[in-house]
């Protein structure tokens, strides 16, 4: 068994009277693709925001390789090695694609404003490294030639790619992807899925994924957790989760399990009759 990269221990996040995340436990092993699914409003993004430090959970602990990170500031968590993308793309839209990646490289370097003004050796070295690293990342995410376009001028799929590129820049060990294939066509979804696999296999990054496209989720996830109304209702691999009656009910409503079974039987008999 791999080392545990992220351990979410009894985490609760409460907004006023609403418990958005309710005593959730997760153990996410290193170098896996771990999906979190659930109906709209289940608390998936809230959980992401807790891990990346936007929210401080009221209760519970979040451990990053055994080290407590809940309550740390967002920028500190980012520089420790947890990067993320967003449900609605949040690029720096009036800057070029390359500059977006260069900003992603920010935590890797140390030179400050005095270095910049006097062009100290440290600045010159780091500046050169920043530029080359940014170009390399740009090529890695498959956006060579897009570098000088302003981010908001880029096509939608490319923007998503660029966001992943920016998240990869500070060499994260954990990457949180919030609906990376939302709004994409089949082909784009396919290539993004391949790309996410490549991140796990080639770079050894642990990926936590929120996704609504079940084909993507079932296709690439090593493990899946299902949230509903802030609580975890199921965990397991794709097959286990798919057949879990609680999960089906969460998606289809009470009585959903029976309904689903009926549909499946119907489908089988249809297939047979053809």
């Amino acid at each position, binding site marked *: 068994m791999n080392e545990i990269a992220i351990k979410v221990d009894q985490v609760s996040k409460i907004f006023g009277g609403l418990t958005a995340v309710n005593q959730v436990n997760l153990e996410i092993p290193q170098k896996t693709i771990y999906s979190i699914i659930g109906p709209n409003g289940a608390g998936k993004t809230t959980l992401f925001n807790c891990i990346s430090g936007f929210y401080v959970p009221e209760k519970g602990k979040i451990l990053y390789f055994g080290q407590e990170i809940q309550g740390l*500031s967002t920028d500190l968590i980012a520089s420790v090695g947890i990067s993320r993308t967003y449900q609605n793309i949040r690029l720096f*839209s009036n800057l070029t694609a*390359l500059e977006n990646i260069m900003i992603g490289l920010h935590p890797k370097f140390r030179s400050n404003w005095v270095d910049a003004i006097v062009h100290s050796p440290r600045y010159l070295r780091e500046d050169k490294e920043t530029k080359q690293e*940014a170009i390399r990342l740009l090529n890695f995410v498959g956006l060579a030639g897009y570098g000088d376009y302003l981010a908001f001028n880029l096509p939608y799929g490319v923007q998503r790619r660029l966001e992943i590129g920016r998240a990869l820049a500070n060499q994260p060990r954990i990457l949180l992807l919030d609906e990376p294939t939302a709004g994409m066509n089949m082909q784009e979804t396919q290539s993004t899925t391949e790309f996410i696999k490549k991140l796990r296999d*080639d*770079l050894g990054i642990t990926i936590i994924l929120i996704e609504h496209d079940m084909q993507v989720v079932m296709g690439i996830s090593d493990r899946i957790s299902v949230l509903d109304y802030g609580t975890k209702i199921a965990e397991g691999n794709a097959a286990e989760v798919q057949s879990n009656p609680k999960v089906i009910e969460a998606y289809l409503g009470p009585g959903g399990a029976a309904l689903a079974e009926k549909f499946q039987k119907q489908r089988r008999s249809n297939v047979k009759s053809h």
Partner: protein
Amino acid sequence: MNRQEFQKFSQHGLVFAIIMIFLVLVDFQTMFATVISKILGTNVLRGGLPEVQYMVIFLVLYSLWMGWFISRKEENKSRRIIMTLVASLTAGVVVGLFGLILNSLIQSGTDVRRYLAALSPESMKLFLLNLDGLGPLALLGVFTVSGLLGGVLSIILQSPSVGKWPKTIKTGISSTWQKFTGSLPPFIRKNAKYLAYLVLGIVIIVLPTRWGSYNNFVTGLVGLYIILGIGLNIIVGLSGQLVLGFAAFFAMGAYSMALLNAPLPHGLMWGFWPALLVGVLMAVVAAILLGLPMMRLRGDYLAIVTLGFGEIIRILLKSDLLSDFSGGPRGIQDIKGPTIFGLPFNNDVQFTYLIIAGVILAIFVYNRLENSRTGRAWLAIKEDAIAARATGINVQRNKLLALCIGAAFAGLAGAFFAARNQFTGPNDHTLMVSINILSIVIVGGMNSIPGIILGAFTLKGLPEILREMENYRLLVFGGLLVFMMIARPEGLWPAKRPQLEKKIKPDTRDGDTPGKGDKNE
């Protein structure tokens, strides 16, 4: 042409007529005629009126523009002619009627100046082209004829054969320019940039000694506003904090210089350079004190808080409470100028050099910062503070840093300002100063040094040179803003993001995986 169309066309003329009437009510036409007369080489005495032919030129130009503008609203040629004719006639009739009213006012001897301060009987007469009763008729004629002429001109100039001219001229110029640069010896071509700097340097050194103290005064003022504009641009343009109390930092610099280097009220004569340093430091301290509590604010709230801060500083300096310390409303006089190696360095030429040096320093620092790690962090914060934080940027620290560096420039400019004027008082640091600086940044083009220089010249230099316009500064300014919003919404000289991808040579090290990504295993 049916009635509806007739109404539509005449409405266009009516709009122009109403604009003209409005301009006359504030006596704008006389100012314009004066400027035209000045351009054509006849100086008009201060307070005097220009000769009548310049007024005719102004009216003709105005109606030519009107005809040109209206004619472009149609496609069909004959309709364009009819349209301009109808519109110009309407404008002529309306302006003529207005002229009749003016004439009767002159005849009855009513003093309009009780209601419209700018409109003297003399300038009213001048608007009627000194023709009295025939004036309205002449106005009708001028408007109709030159309006129609403008329409015809626009048709001719936009016809396909003529329409190509601008392009032909452009390509012609660029090809001759290329030929010219091609014919230069390689040494000059290679070092063209440095040669241009050399020429610019010589001009900067020679000009202040040649063109008199008034021009030096204007140049100095523009230079100070360039420094201020660059300072504010670091705060507003780079880190995205809308600060409306920038004059407060300016006041910090100016008052530090005044208190430490003037005989009254404290008699501390520290000398220019230490006082300059303290001025910059005081501005930075003020920025930290203001910045710490305001880091959590954004947008409108930040603007209001900083606006309040600027006013608090000014009112404090003005108050009786501090009048023993800061001179109160009367301000501080006899501020000493700088010395270099014991020699006085404070005539107008030398001060211009000093300010130009300050401008060069500001541009240098700005350029170095903008494309550095820090500058990119600022831009990221401006674009999306939350995403910036999640990419590992310490938002608060970087915002505070931007505020401090911007304030330091304001302190520098303030110290120069106080020493150059040998005086500073609360009225040098009003809200209008902050707004002026912000306008320079916005009108010129955010994050663009040439834009800020251009903005400072347009908004601070031009009004000084065109003294006739003084009373119409806000009118011209409003017009400029409207023009800008339509024609150049990103500023007169907008900034471009650096195009880096092609410039960076790819690393020779192998692999297309990012860095040491697998180091963590």
